[in-house]
């Protein structure tokens, strides 16, 4: 049981780390496009790892209800499809409405 707890803690810890990095990137990066790099990627893996952690925990703590991990697996699947699509949609609309991309050496906005 201890091994499972270590694995679950590692997964949740990694998930929290990547979500935190995404938030820090959102604050530090200079413009809209680079901020999307931070949030779009880190939220996908961070959220996925958090859900995977709860999945493993549930699987070994309550093995009699296999339906809950199955539902969580669906959740991961849909996040991994929806997140890049949403990031791409934001990026495209920003580009079409003429948001100027930041280049090296410019002042941050």
């Amino acid at each position, binding site marked *: 049981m201890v091994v499972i707890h270590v694995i679950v803690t590692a997964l949740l810890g990694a998930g929290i780390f*990547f979500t935190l990095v995404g938030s820090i*990137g959102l604050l530090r990066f200079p413009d809209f496009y680079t901020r999307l*790099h931070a949030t779009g990627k880190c939220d*996908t*893996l961070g959220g996925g790892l958090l859900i995977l952690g709860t999945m493993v925990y549930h699987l070994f703590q309550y093995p009699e209800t296999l339906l809950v991990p199955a539902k969580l697996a*669906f959740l991961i699947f849909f996040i991994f*499809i929806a997140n890049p699509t949403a990031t*791409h949609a934001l990026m495209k609309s920003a580009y079409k409405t003429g948001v100027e*991309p930041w280049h*090296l050496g410019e002042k941050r906005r």
Partner: protein
Amino acid sequence: MRLKDKGSGILLTFIIMAVFWILLSGLFDTFHLISGLVCCALVAILSHDLLVKGKSEKGILKSLRLLIYIPWELWQIVLANVDVAYRVLHPRMPIDPRIIEFETELRGEFSLVTLANSITLTPGTITISVEPEKGKFRVHAIAKEPADALLVDQTMQRKIAHVFMETGV
């Protein structure tokens, strides 16, 4: 032949929806199973063309190749996150954003969507727009190296062309 395609489309839709119903409802008594399956059958007959559009050759082989492609893509996602974490946490923020354009030989709807989403999830690049007629991609890269990975190496384009059996780049 057309009738057969329609039948397999209905069957595939029915199977997918039945699996979803059984997994998500969690009710295994006779009443709920039968009423769920009847509803699945009705919806599958009425609107199967929304999910399974047209026929595709060698669909099974393509799905198998997609299954092999997915673990590689997952590993790329992990690399992408480590890359972003490095750039975010580095005191001097080593970024040099640029917008690049390139053309691919890919034309299929599904392969273009897969490539666009894969670009967004892999290190340092996000798809801005795709022109399906010319296979032209406009991509925002956060630094020079990820841009070169798409323009020069073209590993991902080749992998996706292999998965969907379209002419490689």
